[in-house]
């Protein structure tokens, strides 16, 4: 998959619309980019090789109590959806879903090449995957939010803030 320039622009504009900050970097720059936005304690799941590695401050294999204590959670996103500034988050046996959900800040790492223009392209990828192997994906757009308490508040049950690290090859 390749992503043309305008798709990336649209994606980052929409990230802004939904209050998601972002960093553009290369695989080598990933540990620093993550560390710059991660408050401790931080937990994470290992990134796919092509996306670089986690900085040392991020602890993997968190226990349930680590999850509840963590301030930052680092996971990768399998897709970005430009039209909505959405991050598509997988569920993995090593716990990407709870790591992206429990801490107050979620840092998502994704490849620029995995940013697709719209919902149809994203669902085409996911449809093939789900039909072949099952699997889960959270289409996450902005932080967790609620208006049930009389005004819009971020961080209802999930993260209060989200940061995207976009990896350019």
């Amino acid at each position: 998959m390749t992503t043309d320039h305008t798709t990336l622009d649209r994606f980052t504009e929409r990230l802004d619309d939904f209050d998601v900050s972002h960093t553009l970097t290369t695989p080598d720059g990933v540990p620093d980019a993550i560390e710059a936005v991660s408050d401790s304690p931080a937990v994470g799941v290992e990134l796919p090789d092509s996306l670089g590695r986690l900085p040392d401050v991020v602890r993997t294999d968190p226990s349930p109590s680590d999850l509840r204590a963590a301030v930052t959670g680092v996971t990768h996103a399998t897709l970005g959806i430009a039209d909505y500034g959405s991050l598509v988050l997988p569920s993995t046996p090593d716990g990407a879903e709870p790591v992206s959900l429990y801490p107050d800040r979620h840092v998502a790492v994704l490849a620029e090449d995995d940013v697709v223009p719209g919902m149809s392209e994203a669902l085409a990828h996911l449809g093939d995957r789900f039909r072949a192997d099952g699997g889960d994906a959270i289409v996450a757009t902005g932080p967790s939010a609620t208006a049930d308490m009389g005004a819009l508040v971020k961080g209802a049950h999930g993260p209060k803030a989200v940061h995207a690290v976009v990896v350019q090859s």
Partner: protein
Amino acid sequence: MTASDRRSKADHIRHILETEGDAVAANTQGFNAGRYESVADLEAYEDLKSEARAIKEDAIERLPDLLSDLRTAVEANGGTVYLADDAADANQYIRDVVEDADGDRVVKSKSMTSEEIELNEALADDCDVVETDLGEWVLQLADEAPSHIVAPAIHKSREGIAELFTERFDPEDPPETAEELTMFAREKLGEQLADADVGVTGANFLTADSGTMALVTSEGNARKTVAATDTHVAVAGVEKVIPSVEDLRPFIELIGRSGTGQDITSYVSLLTPPVDSPTLDFQRDETGSAEDREFHLVLVDNGRLAMREDDDLRETLYCIRCSACSNSCANFQQVGGHAFGGETYSGGIATGWEAGIEGLDTAAEFNDLCTGCSRCVNACPVEIDIPWINTVVRDRINRGADAELDWLVDGLVPDEEPSGLDPQKRLFGNFATLARLGSATAPVSNWLADTGVSRRLMERFVGIDRRRDLPTFAAETFREWADGRSTVANPEREVVLFPDLYTNHVQVERGKAAVRALEALDVAVHVPDVPASGRAPLSQGMIATARDHAETVADELLDHVEAGRDVVVIEPSDHALFQREYEQLLDADRYRALADGSYELFEYVYGLLANGASADALASGDGRRLAYHSHCQQRTLGVERYTEAVLDDLGFDVVTSDVECCGMAGSFGYKQEYYDVSVAVGDELAAQFTADGVDDRTVVASGTSCLDQLDDLLERPSKHPIELVAPTARTERVSGD
């Protein structure tokens, strides 16, 4: 309905208006404004709606096959599927699942279907059940029912929630702000989630190809409900299945925009359970294998398969519960789901759901709050004709359980309706008869109607609220005035001007003005001898009577259409009837011919001007300042823009209202039980027209009801815009002058 039933209904509605009205109005109107904004940014909006509609039509058509495919897919993934016939069946199955899991606590994310089957009550004896959606949790603590299908606690103020938390938890540092209240709830619910055993979710969509479920949420509680528990139970109506993952696209793009006005909600969880995440044991502080997860999909019939066989209720099954029909409804905006709702569902589409699931009695409790204004029609992302469902259900309620017996005495009453029909509905449904009598005996009829004794009797026997001014019947009807009158010789075009009931008997001046305006534009005008359109009986749910009217009107008017004459309609609700509802009442060809051959008055004037007629023949606006309220049904058809354009072209300075409906809606505002909600809706319009810079403008409105409502609520008079546009004197083009 007896007089005392009407009074108690009026009291109930007044109480809700006073206690919940402000909070409901602020929230629903916010959602509604958000919808307009959000869909305006979506280029393919109309196409996506049609696509969503087509997917649902196809899915319901093929439902048995898709359910079978879904079962195969879920079972292949390692889950279990249970098809429950009804609520008791579903609850028994879920109780067994909870027992097998040794479940002491069940956590739930928001699910309307679980509310429909009253799952919480069914589980209460065996375990602790905790709602994790913040709004639902507030209601669980307060022991109150949802007032909205998406945002269940919109009737509660922030202050009310703060008081509730303080009372229930007696915290050392009581939370007050929205932020503090949210964090307090998050903390409390976090503890409950941590030692929960079973997680119950709904499912917004289920894809038959892969066994994937979509959950549309914003808080993240559904994610935690699934992640934190080893046993996942999803409860969903059978209608939630769609063919494929790719088919999710229009729904994901439309559901948030249509409902709360969000381009997309924070989380759309696409799960193919059992999910791949490790289990979390917060007590032992251990994670376990995803292999230990269990998944049960409970598909609920509970009347849906019968709705699928019902030609009029079937469309209800396309509903994706986005709440657009609630938020766009002027009445719902004032009273919310505690008045405009049944056992589970609320808003316009609730009539279909409650009629199909609970029965007509439940639907009858709130169905009359749909006035057929049709503002929900364009808002619905799956293009459901919600007003029609309300009309059909009203008809069924009118006919009652003993409909067959009633048919025997049908011949004894002047309409096509059953003998048990509510006298209030019969009166308004036969308004044509009343108007004929009123004009024939005017002005005596008007004097008599206006005495205190008459008003008390009318209130008591037919529930006409005595606070509402009654229409004044003209002694000379519009048709009598037009009869034998000569018109333009050698005209550019010929029209038949439809003498709607209101123009004919009450708003006679707008009829005369319409004739003057059209003749000034070199159009010959005939006012035919046709009966009323059928709008009045249709709005009372008297479909057979309305169909009778429609057939006769079509017989008369189609002769003119075939002779090359255009049909012009002054009353927007009748124009809308020809364009929309006649499709349900006439055969397809006749409906199409009349719809294509008929025009709203200003639409027609606009067309004449656009095709070379001279605007000089009409009155000049000279910068005259107007406040214009277009009719709800006019706006659904998008024809209000012609009035605005013509007024603008003629040099009037126009501001327009920004409300969904005036609240009068034909007979609705006259009815004792609904007078207060009608005025509450109208007050929003009145406030716009009495605001600074608008309060000195001349008020114009297109609909009879709107004019009635504005006359009642404003101190200055209002009139139909054609009365300002028409030349004051009869044009010299008319032969014989």
